[in-house]
């Protein structure tokens, strides 16, 4: 496992952590950007997937800067449990991805994918903020795309591109709620 | 169309052993019962006059249906020289006809006088057991076939059922105040309604089938001399026993009849059922 890969995993974890710990547009966008950057780095063996997913993540992150609460909103008061979650998730995914799972792809790739899935899901299940939910869904989509690239399933390229497109589409969706009642 | 068979049954229904013969036997028994149950009203002649005075002028439908059913029951008896072929007689037909006739009377007489439908139901249940239990072993409901069984394992059961049958006769023949919505023989001077006289007449027609069925079920029948003598004698004997029991019970305080049937006859009927259940086990 090279130093670059380890650094990429750490960056991805940082991204995930920012996603979980931020309640405002900048923090969330930064989290998404860092995660996609880390993901792209661990996917260097599959350049197409790396470019597509990394690019889509960055575009999605940029799009997230459009709306939602202003500022960074990172580590707001009462975020100790979330911090704990990030640490535990990081340790667990590292352990599971490197020691328990034997595939798919390389260990750093598995850890990064697991980080995306775990932290994305954790954030989605715990947040009440729309922009955070959209970003975490996008992160999970990117992780899924990466998993497809690593498993090399049938029509893998199509699925990776679909995941990238999906992440961008999720970024396109507005981050403000509209509430209408009726039939 | 089986005209001969039809003729035979018509004859049985209207003349013998039903119809005319049932009427004659019934009248004789009714007069005897009236005299025995209410002797203070005079001798036999007075009883006969009193009985004949109650002959209905019209045929009110419910009573008329009851008469027809009583006569239908009479056709099923194993009477000597009966025009009904032996194979076509059926205890069940007789029993159902008699019960239906009795309850037709009750459909008119429910709640009249001292009559108690519940007691009658109990007695009829016991009587039904007495009629049907003997047919369990042979698996046959033809009266003459059942009457013919006089030896072997069936005897204890037949004895028990015979006793039960005799004990039930007074209530079945509407001789007791509790079982006679139209009043026991000799107690009614004039009928209040056509129905009342109709159901008084029903009792006259019940004597032959009720007592004759006892003879048919518990004594051998046939067309030989002995059988010809035995049938009327046993039938009239059963009627006499019924009258005697009724006379005895009517002289006792109220409630004794109920006690007799519910506390004595009913458990004895249970015993008879037990005997019927054990008979095949013990015989084989």
């Amino acid at each position: 496992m090279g130093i670059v890969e380890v650094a990429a995993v750490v960056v991805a974890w940082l991204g995930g952590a920012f996603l979980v710990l931020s309640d405002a547009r900048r923090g969330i966008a930064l989290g998404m950007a860092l995660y996609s950057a880390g993901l792209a780095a661990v996917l260097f063996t599959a350049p197409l997937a790396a470019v597509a997913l990394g690019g889509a993540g960055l575009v999605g992150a940029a799009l997230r800067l459009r709306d939602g609460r202003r500022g960074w909103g990172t580590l707001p008061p009462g975020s100790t449990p979330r911090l704990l979650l990030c640490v535990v998730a990081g340790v667990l995914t590292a352990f599971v991805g490197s020691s328990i799972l034997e595939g798919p792809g390389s260990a750093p790739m598995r850890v990064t994918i697991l980080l995306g899935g775990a932290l994305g899901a954790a954030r989605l299940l715990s947040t009440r903020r729309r922009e955070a939910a959209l970003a975490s869904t996008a992160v999970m989509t990117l992780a899924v795309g990466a998993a497809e690239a690593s498993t090399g399933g049938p029509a893998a390229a199509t699925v990776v591109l679909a995941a990238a497109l999906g992440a961008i589409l999720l970024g396109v969706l507005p981050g403000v709620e509209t509430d209408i009642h009726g039939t | 169309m089986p005209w001969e068979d039809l003729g035979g049954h018509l004859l049985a229904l209207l003349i013998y052993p039903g119809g005319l013969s049932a009427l004659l036997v019934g009248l004789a028994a009714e007069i005897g019962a009236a005299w025995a149950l209410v002797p203070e009203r005079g001798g036999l002649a007075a009883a006969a006059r009193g009985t004949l005075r109650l002959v209905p002028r019209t045929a009110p439908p419910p009573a008329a249906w009851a008469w027809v059913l009583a006569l239908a029951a009479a056709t099923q008896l194993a009477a000597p020289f009966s025009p009904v072929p032996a194979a076509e007689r059926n205890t069940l037909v007789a029993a159902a006809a008699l019960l239906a006739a009795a309850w037709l009377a009750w459909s008119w007489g429910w709640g009249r006088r001292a009559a108690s439908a519940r007691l009658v139901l109990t007695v009829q249940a016991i009587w039904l057991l007495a009629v049907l239990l003997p047919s369990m072993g042979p698996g046959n409901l033809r009266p003459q076939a059942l009457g013919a069984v006089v030896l072997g394992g069936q005897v204890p059961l037949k004895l028990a059922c015979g006793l039960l049958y005799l004990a039930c006769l007074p209530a079945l023949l509407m001789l007791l105040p509790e079982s006679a919505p139209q009043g026991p023989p000799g107690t009614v001077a004039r009928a209040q309604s056509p129905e009342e006289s109709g159901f008084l007449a029903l009792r006259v027609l019940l004597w032959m089938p009720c007592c004759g069925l006892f003879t048919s079920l518990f004594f051998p029948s046939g067309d030989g001399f002995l059988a010809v003598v035995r049938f009327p004698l046993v039938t009239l004997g059963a009627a006499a026993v019924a009258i005697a029991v009724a006379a005895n019970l009517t002289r006792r305080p109220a409630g004794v009849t109920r006690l007799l049937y519910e506390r004595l006859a009913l458990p004895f009927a249970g015993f008879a059922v037990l005997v019927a259940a054990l008979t095949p086990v013990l015989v084989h």
Partner: protein
Amino acid sequence: MVLGAAALLIWFAGAAGLRVGRPLAAAAGWLALASICLLWLPRRSLAEWSGPSLIPGARLILRLDAVSFAFALCVLIPAALLLTFQRRGWRESGAAALTVAAALLAVLADGILSTSLFWGTAATLLLVQLRADHLRATEVYWPALVAGWLALVWAGGALDVLSGTAVYTAVPVTAMTSALFLLILAAAMLGSGVLPWRPWTAEVWDRPRLYVGSLAVALLFPIGFYVLVRAYGADGGRWPSPWLNVLVGALAVLIALTSALRAQAATTRRQFLSEALPGLGGFALLALAVGTATGITAAVATLLTAAVVAALLPLLPEAAESRAAPLLLALLVGAPPAATFAARALVVQSGIEAGGGWGFLALAAALAWLLSFAAAARAGRLPAVGRGTEAGGSAAGAGVAALVLLAGGPLLGWLVAQVCLPATAEVVTVPPGAVAGGSIAVLTAAGAWPAVALGLPLLVLVLLPLLGGRSPRVAAAVEAPPPLLSPVWARPQARIWNRVRALRVPEQYRSLFNPRALEAAMGRGQPLLWAVLLLALAVAVNR
């Protein structure tokens, strides 16, 4: 087809403003009856019509043989009488015609699955008519019918799995197990409303109007028995175990006795009448359970009688006391020479003939019969209809039905020879001399009923007083006379029910059974909840 076409015709005509529902439905009913007789009686040979595949592995085939002919009569005789003499609007007539068609198809179906389809269809159509008329008593009817239907569907499916077919005549003997038979029995008892407690066939009499409920009873009552009779054919002329015969026999006697007990404790005439069919059902079930040729013949005869009774009961005039009321009541409970008597007698005879324990069961049935005589005598004193019920009926219809019932006794010999015995021979082997019917008598090993020779004169003699005689109308008592035997089971039943209803989850555990709280937890599920859930399941699947 005749009935289905009639239904469509009635609806189209009705929609076009032509109100010809009732006569058209009645004509269709009689025409269907005539066609089924013309199809079967002259040739008496098996006829089959193959239809489309219902579900994978089950094709719809209609089969006209002696059994289905007998049961078709059980369905069509009361249907034709009710469609003719009951007052119905054009919509109701159309629905009724369609329902009769479904019920007829159920007894013409050659397999359990097809029977269940048409039986269920008939039940559904009847539910619509019942609810459209009045809500009362469908709470008993619908669950009972659906439970029975599900049991039959399950039995059909299971037979299909075990033997590759659910066709009555093709099921191998080994496939019909006791468990399967119990399912079929449950279906039959629930569907036909033959139970030891007050069944839906009696409950529908609590409705203000009888015209739909009575049709439901008339059409659905025979179908359960049809399946039970077919079960003999499907299992080589016997039920899977002799103990099942004993169980069904004991149940049947219990049903006859409890029905008679309820009848003698009735508070209105309607309540008494409502018990007539369950009582007869008990007798039919007992005869079926006996399982001998005489028994099955007696069962079919009883069901044919029940069909006429099902038509007669709702047609009886309720408003005024009729002169014939005592006779009608006596006929219903089996006074000679009516068919009700002949059928009951044949059932008791079949039990006594079978010997052993069957004799005692027959004896118990005879006691139930006696009790219903007493109930009928008491019923004459009861108010005709209860509170909230509307007097209905049709004197003409009741007259026709009563005549058929009366004539049924003398005609029983012919019926046995032409309908019952062939149906019996279809499912079991009939030993020579076991049971025979003809123009003279019904002869069994145990006894005989001189149907024509004695029945005919009796019939004439019974009718004479009615034509000639004059009797005052017996006024019913304002309040019902006390029952002869008070239902001993009522109080404990109520007590147990109250106990059950009083059961509560202890306060401290209620939160565990609070679905709203659980749903809120699901809806707002925090990551920890899902993590724990997943972990628990992961451990569970790897143990």
